[in-house]
């Protein structure tokens, strides 16, 4: 670009990379479903492969995160606060990190859930992934928000979406309590060390929804400012 034109004033939009990042993050988290399916079938080879896929997507998301960070010099002027945007990005990134931690821990210990829990566990995981999916949907509204100058109808629409994200997160909290209670009734028959890790896994999966909710609330803060 010839810098003797004034068009250097237009900087690269941070919104597209942000959307790309959450897309990758959600895809990464979604990888947990087939992963646990393989685990429940005791197919550890398949599970390992799926774990690599998750870890790969997490790396890609990291890459996008880094690129976005360097493309936001301090002299940039945006309709949204730069710090809010960076915070939002790091929250998004934590979802992918969590997904990688979960799959890594399960693979590392060849951790198996008691079969009685499988159905409810999948239900719980699916609900948590609903939350990451909702976070993705909300972030993908940034284009439209920009079109409307971050106000008006579109803003209210996004606020409703964030409210829905909160509802999903509430659901997962309730489900998490149930999962823990169930594990407690079964724990005397299980390897105590495994039980400790299973509690961790249940909590971490809940984290997926927790962090997604945080993505939503960061966005809300960003829009309020």
């Amino acid at each position, binding site marked *: 670009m*010839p810098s003797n*034109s004034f*068009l250097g004033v*237009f900087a690269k939009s*941070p919104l597209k990379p942000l959307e790309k990042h959450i897309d990758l993050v959600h895809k990464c988290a979604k990888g947990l479903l087939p992963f646990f399916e393989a685990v429940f079938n005791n197919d550890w080879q398949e599970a390992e492969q799926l774990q690599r896929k998750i870890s790969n997507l997490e790396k890609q998301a990291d890459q996008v995160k880094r690129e976005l960070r360097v493309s936001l*010099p301090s002299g*940039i002027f945006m309709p949204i606060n730069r710090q809010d945007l960076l915070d939002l990005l790091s929250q998004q990134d934590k979802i992918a990190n969590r997904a990688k931690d979960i799959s890594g821990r399960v693979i590392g210990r060849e951790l198996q859930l008691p079969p009685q829990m499988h159905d409810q566990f999948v239900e719980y995981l699916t609900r948590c992934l609903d939350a990451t999916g909702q976070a993705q949907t909300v972030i993908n509204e940034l284009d439209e928000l920009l079109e409307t100058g971050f106000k008006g109808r579109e803003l209210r629409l996004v606020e409703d979406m964030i409210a829905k994200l909160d509802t999903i997160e509430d659901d997962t909290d309730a489900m998490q309590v149930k999962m823990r209670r169930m594990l407690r009734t079964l724990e005397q028959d299980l390897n105590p060390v495994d039980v400790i890790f299973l509690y961790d896994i249940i909590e971490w999966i809940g984290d997926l929804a927790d962090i997604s909710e945080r993505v939503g609330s960061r966005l809300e803060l960003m829009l309020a400012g």
Partner: protein
Amino acid sequence: MDILQSYGAILIGAAALVGFLMAWGIGANDVANAMGTSVGSKALTIKQAIIIAMIFEFAGAYLAGGEVTSTIRKGIIDSAFFVDTPELLVFGMIASLLAAGLWLAVASALGWPVSTTHSIIGAIVGFAAVGISADAVNWAKIAGIVGSWVITPAISGFIAYLIFMSAQRLIFDTDNPFKNAKRFVPMYMGLAGFVLTLVTIKKGLKHVGIDLGAMEGYAISVAIAVGVAIVGRYFINKIQIDEKADQRMHYASVEKVFAILMVVTACCMAFAHGSNDVANAIGPLAAVVNVVENNGEIAKKAALAWWILPLGGLGIVAGLALFGHRVIETIGKGITHLTPSRGFAAELAAATTVVIASGTGLPISTTQTLVGAVLGVGMARGIAALNLSVVRNIVVSWVVTLPVGAGLSIVFFFMIKGIFA
């Protein structure tokens, strides 16, 4: 006096040549700024941009460039100081053209965003203040011009903000943005047509030898505005909702309507650019011609020689034809996420401001005005990201341009004076 009689033709020829080259440089370089927004938001292809620029730059230069040309020709310098030595005015104006042209060439090669307007004003002030006398410069006028450089970006930013907000209110923040876009966009087109025509008729045409009455002027402006709106409406009605694109981005179809509007604002921008910037090249030339043809008498009232405005217009078009393609091509790729609805607000605001300034004879910088307009849209939270450090660089290079233009023209002035002495 003898010098003017014996070398008159050579002096006019030299001034015409340098002036033409300067216009050529403006066409090749500055047009990127005027047309870049349209190409960048993908409302126009490069070819379309070049064709529009050629037609409307010439029209702007020819029809509305007279007032600013007069300012540069005779508004900056107090001609009383040249009554006995009119040849010095001729030398100075040629030196100014050389200085501004050289500085622009160097700056373009180094990639600095300099302003043609600032270089020529700096150059003229330089030779007059140092080569003649500090009192030879009409400082009050200069203060006004420099003041306008600060005020016009602010005004155009404010207008851009208002236009953008009105588009939000009328179109984007409604139940059916597409329907409202179809309804209101022709009105913006009409508005653009109205302002341009009115300023041209009121201020520009008298230099071409046409003089219309006040009522006639308004009537013609309204007629043209309505005409533009109707033609625009015809093209807009051909746009269909693109359901697939709308799923990805709700406002994709709405932006298509704005893309048509941007064709109109691109014409305005080219016209405005032509009307204001042509004077930078031909204002000094006009002064030279004026002095030489009147045998050294510096006539205050003298009309512009008929061939000067079209010469500047042709220079701009020639520059466009030769280099515009390459320049616009490189910028087209650079801009991301500038949708037509934003580009239109910035362009319409800048074009309106520039054309009005042209009408009042103020030599302002098109680029500066455009930067102001873009920042205005940015303030309305309409643009994803702007580089303020680039804005700072632009401002710095503008400030630097004044003393450099002045210094160069002083050097050239004494050189030319030495040659003929």
